[in-house]
């Protein structure tokens, strides 16, 4: 009896302490978009619909800035679809699953939404988590439309996996070409996060292209962001600083890239920082300080794009989020993935997983916010353009300055 009582005391105390801590800090942590969602308009579904789609993403954990944006993007698309008449007059529902930004929990989240009978799954924002979701969905033949998972071999041997973003086999060469041709960098160092399948794949494709163009990789170092690895970069940065590279390619996520760039400058590395779409969150500005300014990374679209798709999407987003733009690109990609799935559902011959899978596979020239998406004959990997943006000081919501855009034909 005593044990139980004591543990309860401990938990109660924990609640009080953390309540105080959260209370202290609640006012100034608005780094997600979830905080200013207008509560006025309820969602158009309640979970009792016959046809439901799963939205599995990182609603908590490290990748929360991406996950909440995907969720909001999906909600926006589904509300729009249901208001426009739904599926032959019937509303379509959505089931949320939280992966907590971790592969093991991604599996549980996928199984949770699958057990509720969803016909398709939209998600995830990271490749490591999408692999788990795809494995769970495979047995039931449920199609998975990935939002921001760029790892190249994700769709290989998995005919039920699709994505609305480009792949690392494209993104890496884009950055290599940009660094070599536009920034005139000849000597490059690479720092890979060995914990992320995404980072490994991206570094590989970057390294290969940069060498093929005639550049040299003067240092190729690794760190580990999760598991038993320790976030200590001093050793690898000493090695890199000695080689005095002109560019440093950081293929990890914003959570680590921020502190790394800060430490790299402290170690006397003067190189230009380059990275992939894993940098895309404005929290990188706070964790890196001024070190990250002038760095370049690859992204999917830019809020300043004047095309009707982008501006139309932003108008709808702002109307729902009190005038603010999505802080990461996952808002638009989440919206694209959900709209594409719903568009396919409309075209599907049978309104089940099999019909949906065939219809998604058949998608041609779908006009998304992040560009035109054609999945037919592409094995789940749509050929899309990529843009390179420069990190600048935050000016309103915008902190990415458009630099160059590349189409798949330009990178061969």
């Amino acid at each position, binding site marked *: 009896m005593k044990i139980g009582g004591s543990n309860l005391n401990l938990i109660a*105390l924990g609640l009080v302490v*953390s309540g105080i*801590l959260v209370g*202290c*800090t609640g006012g100034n942590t608005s780094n997600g978009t979830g905080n200013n969602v207008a509560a006025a308009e309820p969602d158009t579904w309640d979970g009792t619909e016959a046809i439901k789609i799963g939205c599995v993403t990182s609603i908590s954990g490290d990748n929360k800035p991406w996950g909440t944006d995907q969720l909001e993007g999906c909600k926006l698309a589904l509300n729009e679809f249901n208001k426009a008449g739904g599926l032959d007059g019937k509303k379509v529902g959505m089931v949320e699953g939280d992966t907590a930004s971790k592969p093991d929990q991604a599996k549980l989240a996928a199984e949770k939404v699958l057990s509720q009978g969803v016909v398709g799954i939209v998600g995830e924002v990271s490749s490591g988590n999408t692999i788990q979701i795809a494995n769970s969905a495979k047995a039931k033949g449920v199609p998975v439309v990935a939002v921001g998972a760029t790892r190249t071999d994700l769709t290989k041997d998995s005919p039920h996996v699709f994505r609305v973003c480009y792949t690392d086999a494209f993104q890496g060469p884009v950055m290599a070409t940009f660094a070599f041709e536009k920034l005139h960098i000849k000597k490059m160092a690479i720092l890979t996060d060995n914990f992320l399948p995404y980072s490994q794949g991206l570094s590989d494709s970057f390294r290969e292209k940069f060498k093929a163009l005639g550049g040299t990789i003067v240092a190729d170092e*690794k760190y580990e962001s999760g598991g038993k690895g320790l*976030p200590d970069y001093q050793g690898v940065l000493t090695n890199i600083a000695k080689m005095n590279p002109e560019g440093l390619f950081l293929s990890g996520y914003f959570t680590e890239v921020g502190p790394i760039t800060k430490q790299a400058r402290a170690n*006397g590395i003067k190189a230009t920082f380059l990275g992939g779409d894993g940098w895309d969150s404005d*929290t990188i500005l706070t964790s890196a300080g001024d070190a990250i300014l002038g760095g370049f990374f690859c992204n999917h679209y830019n809020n300043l794009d004047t095309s009707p798709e982008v501006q139309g999407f932003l108008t709808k987003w702002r109307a729902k989020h009190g005038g603010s733009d999505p802080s990461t690109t996952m808002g638009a990609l989440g919206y694209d993935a959900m709209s594409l799935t719903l568009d396919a559902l409309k075209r599907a011959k049978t309104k089940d997983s099999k019909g949906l899978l065939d219809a998604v596979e058949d998608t041609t020239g779908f006009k998304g916010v992040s560009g035109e998406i054609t999945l037919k004959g592409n094995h789940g990997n749509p050929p899309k353009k990529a843009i390179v943006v420069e990190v600048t000081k935050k000016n309103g919501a915008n902190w990415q300055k458009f630099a160059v855009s590349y189409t798949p034909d330009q990178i061969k």
Partner: protein
Amino acid sequence: MTTLSALPLASVDFTTLPQQLVNGFLLGAIYALVALGYTMVYGVLKLINFAHGEVFMLGSYGALFTSWMLGFGPGGNEALTGSWVTLVIMLFGSMLVSGTAGFLIERFAYRPIRNHPRIASLITAIGLSLLLQYGGQIFLLQGGKQAINSKVNPYADDLTFNLVKPDQKLAAEAATYQKRVDDAQVAKDKQFEHEPDRFNPSPLGVSLEKTLNELKEKQSDITNKANLTAVTLKIPKGKLIMLTAILGLMCSLWYLVMKTRMGRAMRAVSVDFNAASLMGINLNTVITFTFILGSTLAGAGAMMYSTFQAAPIDSFSGAAPGVKAFVAAVLGGIGNIPGAVLGALVMGIAENLVTWSGYSSYRDAIAFVILIGVLLFRPGGILGSNKVEKV
């Protein structure tokens, strides 16, 4: 520089060896603070406190929130810079949070089951560790990893020691390029002010850029050659202060354990739990004191790790340093105070040597390889044996 041609990236560069040894020593010093907590608790209770890594994590949050209260939080005053007072307040903040956490853990989780079989305490320790990791996900900040604002540390600049000066001839040659590079840079910048798109410049811009890049490349080639002949040691001033603080803490610990009544009681308890009790030593007081002491040291380590190493903080960030420090404690001989410090330094240096040799992907594996190696030949750890007085 020697390069093994069969392994193109596994290059060993002896000019960076001194720097890597220093990096390893500084990292090892932080491990040592955490390892001391494991070893002291084991000394008195024969319990491996697996929640010690989470005490470390709470200490990092203590430092983070203290820095926020001092005005270094998100949205704080940009012009604010820290001083040594800031650092000391943060150190005390994190030590206070960790010490309190250690006290509460002992009082409410371990004390009620102290007389039960030891396996119960062990499972409780693991359970507590998980509770704090995942509970922290809910209650501590949910916006992902946090980092302490680097402005709290005013001692970011380096002390540079030129152990071997760069080749004079090459250095002089590199210097002759400086003026030409500067001139070319000015010419290019002037032209690029009028260019609408810096990535698609006009023919004049292209040629100016080309001249600049060629000059820069020649200069950097020579500079690199010169650098490869030099051996320099850069130590941030902040880390020297950190090291001094760690040494100070260790001296006070030594004084506490060896020269005070409480220290004598701790040593007595570690020799024989029951006999110490019969001699009139209040076991509860001694054990509580040990937990607070060990946790406070972990808190100090956490503050230094998150401030001077700029390590990101989340509720799992204590797990990795915890495991490393535990391995260090076992390596040095668990229960032995100097052993924990020695083990930690060995670990820190070994890890950086692995990185130095070019195999940075195996860095974290080395900890366990060393552990297995040492335990095969010295099961008690480097300094551990039954005859050594344990605390």
